[in-house]
């Protein structure tokens, strides 16, 4: 049976080049980067090198990169670190309704402690406009956090314009770039962001490693307390292998950026075009214009996403659903809800995300399989075009 993985936004395989770079740091080069003998210094150099590689990918200075245990930690650090540092100035935070739960649940936690959070709506394209942001700013706003690329519908936000609004008011601006990294051009200086979250496992690096970019001159409180690692800002013995892997993955992402984007976009467009042309009563969620090159969020009306996922899984195809029904939740996706997709249609939404190892044959196999699966499930369904919902 063919195996087709179309869930690159969930995670990516570690590229061989990345793995080869990591391996020595498990065994021979295992020294603690804080140790003062050669074996430690060798590890410290490896961490510094990785820091340069990650910085180069986003146009930052190496000193502005702080390694974390992933995107979730970076998001939490920003929320709790900024809230603590700036609590004397104000207690209002602005974010959006479509952030990852790493951001949303952190903000909700702060709300319980007396902070106020505004969750911005998105427009029909899935974006927040500078006007929408401007209208939410208050005298006591201390942090604005808007994701660069949405993980479900792949919408790319106008970060440069949004960051400019924040800057004009002297408010800290953070962006969660976990899905954006390696998929859209990022230059933190041009974008004008103060803080930016990243994760290695979405760019063919290892899981459990990420980083927070903190612009020079920006100060937020620490989140993890302990040793003096990461310039005393993030305690804990460095995840040496993970960091080395992240560095290499970042280097490759920079080196192969154009090729990667072109490859994903070509296959994604082929998938979308074929699905829309060959399967009736389907639609794409979010704008095609400002979109992650590998993302296709497609709704199949009158059927339910988990059922589609199971049939596809049986055919060796891995995708995820918008209803998150299959990911242990029965709640309809907060992103599709914010986009205004009717709830019954959210249940029939599937996210396909394409990556470097996807081929044209894979995409054709997926569409061919989908055609059968969708018509089979529509035969079973109690709702259809004649009956309506």
């Amino acid at each position, binding site marked *: 049976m063919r195996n087709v993985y179309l869930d690159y936004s969930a995670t990516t395989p570690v590229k061989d080049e990345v793995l080869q770079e990591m391996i020595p740091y498990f065994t021979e080069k295992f020294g603690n980067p804080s140790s003062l003998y050669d074996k430690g210094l060798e590890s410290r150099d490896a961490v510094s090198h990785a820091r340069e590689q990650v910085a180069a990918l986003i146009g930052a200075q190496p000193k502005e990169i702080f390694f974390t245990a992933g995107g979730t930690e970076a998001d939490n650090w920003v929320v709790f670190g900024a809230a603590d540092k700036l609590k004397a100035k104000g207690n209002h935070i602005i974010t959006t309704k479509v952030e990852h739960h790493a951001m949303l649940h952190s903000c909700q936690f702060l709300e319980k402690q007396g902070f106020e959070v505004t969750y911005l709506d998105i427009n029909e394209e899935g974006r927040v406009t500078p006007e929408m942001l401007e209208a939410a700013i208050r005298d006591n706003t201390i942090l604005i956090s808007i994701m660069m690329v949405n993980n479900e519908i792949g919408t790319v936000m106008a970060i440069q314009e949004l960051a400019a609004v924040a800057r004009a008011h002297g408010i800290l601006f953070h962006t969660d770039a976990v899905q954006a990294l390696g998929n859209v051009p990022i230059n933190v200086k041009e974008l004008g962001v103060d803080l930016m979250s990243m994760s290695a496992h979405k760019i063919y690096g290892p899981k459990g490693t990420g980083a927070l970019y903190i612009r020079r001159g920006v100060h937020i409180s620490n989140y993890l307390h302990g040793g003096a690692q990461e310039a005393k800002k993030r305690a804990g013995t460095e995840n040496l292998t993970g960091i080395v892997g992240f560095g290499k993955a970042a280097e490759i992402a920079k080196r192969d950026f154009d090729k990667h984007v072109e490859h994903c976009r070509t296959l994604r467009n082929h998938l979308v075009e074929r699905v829309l042309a060959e399967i009736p009563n389907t639609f794409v969620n979010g704008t095609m214009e400002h979109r992650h090159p590998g993302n296709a969020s497609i709704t199949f009306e009158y059927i339910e996403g988990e*059922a589609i996922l*199971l049939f596809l899984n049986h055919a060796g195809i891995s995708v995820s659903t918008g*209803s*998150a029904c299959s990911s*242990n939740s029965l709640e309809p996706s907060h992103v599709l809800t914010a986009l205004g997709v009717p709830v*019954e249609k959210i249940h029939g939404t599937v996210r396909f995300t394409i990556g470097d190892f996807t081929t044209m044959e894979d995409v054709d196999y997926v569409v061919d399989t989908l055609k059968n699966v969708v018509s089979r499930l529509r035969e*079973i369904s*109690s709702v259809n075009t004649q009956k309506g919902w």
Partner: protein
Amino acid sequence: MALYNDIVMEHFMNPKNVGELENPDGSGTYGSPVCGDMMQIQIKVEDETIVDAKFKTFGCGSAIASSSMATSMIIGKTIEEALDITNKQIIDALGGLPPVKVHCSVLADRAIKNAIYDYAQKAGKTYAALEGYDPNEDEDEHDHGDIEE
């Protein structure tokens, strides 16, 4: 490792009794597309025995499997016997459902009861098990959890 056991998968991939009856003696639906599952079950009754049943379901894998199992269980049973079927029995017959999917069996159970209720209304019959039965009453709220990528 799989989301569902083999029995559930078999009833999902190759469901029994899919479709609609031409002249059903009773027809019941339960759930709504907004909640993510809606089942329609129809029955043909002869001499108080359910001789045929068909279903149509909008829903996830376990909703389809529960519909298939539930319709299989009531065919050949008397109305009284069918009314005695509980969602627990549907789950057991399926060899178990994940906790978050238990409500799918409740849906199937309710769709059966609604079909029989409809039959009782049309045929002018009364059944002790249907006394005070409200076909539109909501099922209990179910558990939610979430993991996102």
